[in-house]
């Protein structure tokens, strides 16, 4: 009789369970913030790897994991200074590597820009952006999703080998403490230099 009563009680509890509020998780002491780390040191790009390669930004330890990362290139330019045909963005590969080993291709094989009067762009890469960089036509300074038009290309050594992720979300919930490295290189290093 006692075993039967217990079984009934268990069934009643199970029947009620879906309608009960779910138990709270343990309290999570934390603090959080949005922090921007800026390097005002320039990076030059001719053929092949940029200089320096890679520049780094040191990020201190946070008491919480990184939830969201965005990255900004200030005053990006790349053009043939002998024949002004616009900006040769299509030759640039730009990859960001975090201290935990995650890496994302921010920009590769995007549109060559025929705008001959405006050679500089400030580009913010953010997964929340509405669009990526275009594969044809021009684009302006603004916020774009990382854009790797032909995935699989590798950055020159000593950049870490691929594959490279296509979104900055690869850094979510990683340890941000350490050096973040930016690899900028021109594809001309391997393709050789041809006219215009």
């Amino acid at each position, binding site marked *: 009789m006692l075993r039967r009563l217990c079984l009934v009680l268990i069934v009643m509890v199970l029947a009620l369970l879906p309608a009960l509020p779910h138990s709270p998780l343990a309290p999570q002491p934390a603090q959080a913030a949005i922090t921007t*780390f800026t390097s005002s040191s*320039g990076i030059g790009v001719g053929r092949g790897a940029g200089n320096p390669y890679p520049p780094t930004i040191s990020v201190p330890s946070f008491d919480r994991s990184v939830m969201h990362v965005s990255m900004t290139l200030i005053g990006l330019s790349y053009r043939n200074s002998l024949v002004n045909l616009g900006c040769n963005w299509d030759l640039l590969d730009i990859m960001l590597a975090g201290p935990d080993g995650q890496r994302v291709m921010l920009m590769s094989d995007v549109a060559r820009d025929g705008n001959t009067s405006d050679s500089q762009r400030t580009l913010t890469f953010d997964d929340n952006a509405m669009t990526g960089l275009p594969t044809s036509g021009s684009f302006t300074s603004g916020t774009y999703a990382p854009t790797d038009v032909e995935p699989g290309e590798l950055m020159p050594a000593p950049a870490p080998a691929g594959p490279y992720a296509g979104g900055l979300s690869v850094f979510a919930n990683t340890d941000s403490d350490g050096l973040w490295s930016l690899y900028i290189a021109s594809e001309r290093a391997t393709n050789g230099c041809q006219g215009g």
Partner: protein
Amino acid sequence: MVALHCLRTGNEWLSGGVSGWSLTLSTGIQLSNSSRIAVNSTGVTGFYPSISGLGGAHGRIIQVIATLYGVSHARPADLDVLLVGPDGVGVLLMSDAVGSNALTDATLTFDDSAARALPEQQAATTGLYRPANYGSGVDPFVSPAPSGPYGASLSAFAGRDPNADWKLYVIDDTNDIGGEIARGWSVSIILDPTAPTTSAQLTPTANAGGWTNADTTVILTVTDTGGAGVQKITYSAFGAVSFASTTILATTVPISITVEGVTTLNYFATDRAGNVEATPSLVVRLDKTLPSATAPRARLLAGRQLSTSTMPVTLQWSGADGLSGLSRFQLQESVGGGAFAGVPVSPAKATTSTRQLTPGTTDRKRVRSADQANNISAFATGASFTPTAIQENAASLVYGGRWTSQALNAAFGGTLRFANTAGATATVTFTGRSIAWVSLTAANRGQAQVRIDGGAPVTVDLYTPTTRGRWTVFAANGLAAGTHSMVITVLGTKNAASGGTRVDIDALLFLP
């Protein structure tokens, strides 16, 4: 931009780079509840609400991102999903959205900064969306869900304390088709734990004592490093300038202080997350009024020593400042009609200075004062004067009784005259307002009596343990303009410690 390294080949010279780069990292709290939420065809779902709790977090909410994992429903328009956070604030993540376009194991992330809202009739897949509430009817959430209206964006949580149970209420408002949120949900919360800070800059800057001497502008500038951004500045003042608490929506504000005196400014900033700065204060001390100074007066004082060719003249002046107080005097002198030149005053607020002047040379002195705010008065210039000195053997000095002349290196001019016998006198008639008797003091010197214009006698004791030559042993100042007489009478008495009764006359000094 750094120097470029590029190689020229054919008609191509590629160059470029960036002038800088930055990383923006958002760190936060992620609450999750991975339990499956069954969406019953009969309205209220299982786990109503589904709860995830948070405690001990420090800071105010800047941003909330919510994610539903594994959403499946044949007709998503039936789904109403309500997220309730601190203070019972509810935000509809989705209601009557996506029409009849089935969702299959979709992970829907809701973020106010997403590029698109969850569509009303178009299909949706796993992705990032802004919350969307379509349809004009009231969504039939039942207790314990809070009653509406509900927020349309996750910004409704901004500025609130995140420490609470976060609850997800899911209902199916058509009651014919079921579904599920297979792997639960999460809320990512970005907090601003840091109150803004306000700096105050004075123009003109205050000096080391905290004073300014011109109309002053205090510029309050707020910075917020916590991520939320500055919302407002609140400030008030009391003292010389007084106004009630004022709040403006800005990151900087100029405050003009033009009334002299001490004003205390209190101010604090608030950021958009509701973090409030502890109230700093700034004391502004403004003194625009010049201090005053009186022209220096020349006097002869006893107890001063002559050099072999100059005589000590003491200058006295005064000054005043009614607000910040005096900080220093500047004394200048013109000798022989020359240009004024600075004379050290030590300590800086001293009102007297003794100068060694050359007898027979015209002098003029002037002084000005500065206050703590560095306001500086005009010079107050005294009248020109010529100090004079006569030796003991001058014709204007008439002796009575027995006096003896003596050559002595320590004497002014190398000679002096002395007497030991009571009743011996020396009388001088002079024109001027100050006179001093120069003598020699030593361990064997005696006492004398001095009368000015036959007035009350003053006894002068020439005993000192060590010898001091060219020493002013008596002085009188403030005499009426005109002719006066002074009589020195040897008393024949001595200090008990003295070995003799000798009295010396070395010289007499005069000021007009």
